[in-house]
């Protein structure tokens, strides 16, 4: 484990989906970080990283929305993002999005400070939990961005593996996409529907009592599908799960 000195302060970028649809997940992430003695700053003017527009080809729109976030992180603190795909957008795509514009240098500087939540908890804070929960079998869905852009899927696994009473199981085709893909799930509902059906079935068939994911889009996709089918099996955000297991009031 890297034993970096934890920073005293971090910014928290909550992401638009968490803001409106799953605020508790954001709050739980903040609680976990603060419990480790780090002050969390939440810039009130934040909204969205611009990813929905960017992946839809609406580059100018994405740039305008992303541009509105650039000024929100004046101190040189890390910026923690509780979603793999948003973190990927900010870290890897903002430099491209602003290339050749007056904001390029600033975008690069901000991008350099983006850290995905699980990565931060594990590798910066070296989180050492005491698992207070009952024995549980758990499946993990990792967002594709976290896996392929951020390479942080191993962090989620490592965090869960630090919980003594949780048995992590691998589900069939764990690396496969759940079919969310932002507007993809709305634009191609037939294909996306087949993908999420397979993902939901694989998670259920894994023998796990529930699943977790560190990406709000994937979570809403899979849970929304399970709920539509009247299923009681469901998933929650990694932060919520970790907090619950370690005595936090989630």
């Amino acid at each position, binding site marked *: 484990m890297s034993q970096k000195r934890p920073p005293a302060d971090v910014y928290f970028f909550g992401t638009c989906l968490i*803001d409106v649809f799953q605020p508790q997940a954001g709050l739980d992430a903040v609680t976990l970080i603060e419990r480790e003695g780090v002050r969390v700053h939440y810039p009130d003017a*934040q909204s969205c990283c611009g990813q929905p527009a960017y992946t839809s*080809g609406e580059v100018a729109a994405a740039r305008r929305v992303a541009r509105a976030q650039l000024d929100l992180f004046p101190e040189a603190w890390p910026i923690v993002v509780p979603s793999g795909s948003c973190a990927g957008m900010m870290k890897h795509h903002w430099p491209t999005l602003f290339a050749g514009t007056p904001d390029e240098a600033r975008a690069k500087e901000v991008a350099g400070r983006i850290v995905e939540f699980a990565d931060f908890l594990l590798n910066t804070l070296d989180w050492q939990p005491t698992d207070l929960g009952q024995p549980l079998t758990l499946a993990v869905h990792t967002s594709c961005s976290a896996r392929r852009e951020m390479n942080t899927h191993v962090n989620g696994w490592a965090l869960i593996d630090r919980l003594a009473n949780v048995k992590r199981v691998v589900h069939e085709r764990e690396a496969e996409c759940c079919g969310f*893909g932002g*507007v993809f799930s709305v634009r*191609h509902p*037939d*294909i*996306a529907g087949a993908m999420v059906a397979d993902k939901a079935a694989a998670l259920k068939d894994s023998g796990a009592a529930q699943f977790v994911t560190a990406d709000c889009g994937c979570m809403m996709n899979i849970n*929304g599908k399970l709920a539509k089918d009247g299923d009681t099996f469901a998933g929650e955000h990694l932060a919520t799960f970790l907090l619950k297991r370690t005595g936090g009031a989630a």
Partner: protein
Amino acid sequence: MNEATLTYYPSRDFKANARAALADSNLRASFRGAMDFLMGKRAAQFPDAHELAELRKLGEAIRQKSLAKLPELLEQLEAKLTENGVTVHWAETTEEANAIVHGLIAAKGGKLAVKGKSMVSEETELNHYLEARGMTAIESDMGEYIVQLAGEKPSHIIMPAIHKTRADIARLFSEHIPGTPYTEDVDALIQIGRQALRQMYVSADVGISGVNFAIAETGTLCLVENEGNGRMCTTVPDMHIAITGIEKVIEKLSDVVPLYSLLTRSATGQPVTTYFNMISGPRRPGEKDGPREVHLVLLDNGRSQAYSDEQLRKTLQCIRCGACMNHCPVYTRIGGHAYGTVYPGPIGEIISPHMLGLENTVDLPTASSLCGACGEVCPVKIPIPEMLMRLREESVRDPHEKVAHPLRGQGAGVDKEVKLAWRLWTGLYSKPGYYRLFGWAATRLRGLTPRHQLGWTQNHVPMKPAPKTLHELMRERRKETGR
């Protein structure tokens, strides 16, 4: 072949095609099984992640260098091939390419062409063209032969008949090949195909093939195959016509070594194919076989459009291994035909718009969740998701906007209502005051959440805002903690 039975799926009907494919449980099971098999085989060929990373880097560098020198290398290739006795032809369009091939066969008074696998000839619909002019073109790759008998098109660039079960093929052979009993035994079926096709090599006036790599340094055409039909087509008939895209040229003979290794291991998970056939000219005086004439047709068909833009040029790095489709969660579920294009899957989504125009392929760049599996396995590191996003950008760009290298069909995906929605979204999400108000209103009015939300509620319960936004919860928390 009977033209009436030819199944053609225009890519404009992508969504309907996809829906039909998804509803076909046999088809889905076929593709799922085949893709799982191919993914497993590929993974077994690359046990060493470091070796794979280094080899991919090398492959990418070779392809990028080749493209950076493309016009010079094409001229060198032409000069070298000419010196070797091969005649080089150039075609900007599929029609020109077909006319060249037809003209060459007609000049010999030929009627029967036997074909090795060539995706470029699928691009030009060469068989159709020749048949409409009284010639016969027989596909000799087993998969292509099966697909041709069925009056269909390939559903995968490496395994053309991957959508067919052995029962389908048993039926096809017993119906179409005279004197053939129904059998589902794969060995027996292959022997039936072998016998039917061997007579074709003997009688054919011309052999037509594709090219995997064209080496400028030595004037060599390389063909990669397992079956031996490629060697037959390029060796037995008196004339060999190879047809390929202008991007297939590589500079040095030694460049082919890593590319060949990447190709076979990525495509079918083989360390090597049965044959690697390197052709550097027609029969020389004293030699007793090989074609007396060898021709190469170099086809553009939209490739120069991709080339004109340095980002989109990466599309042309492709060595046609098909790994992107094998690993694509969309392709796996809908199969190759739904795309309605010669090249399906991720590579098809990024190359077809250059060949057919965005106006004919507008759904293709959007048919991806951008999961990145394709880019991750691409042996020459084409950033496919990046290409998809760029094509989406061009597709929704104002058709009248002047850009340095306009793509054919620029703005084909513009939808006024969607544009308006993005304008509203931008207004809300780029102004903190409006955004907070929006978040407050959305959470307070959560009881009014519509029951039908575009495509979302087809598969999901409606998205319902939480009672309070994270903004509000954080403000409350700050009050409590005093920070």
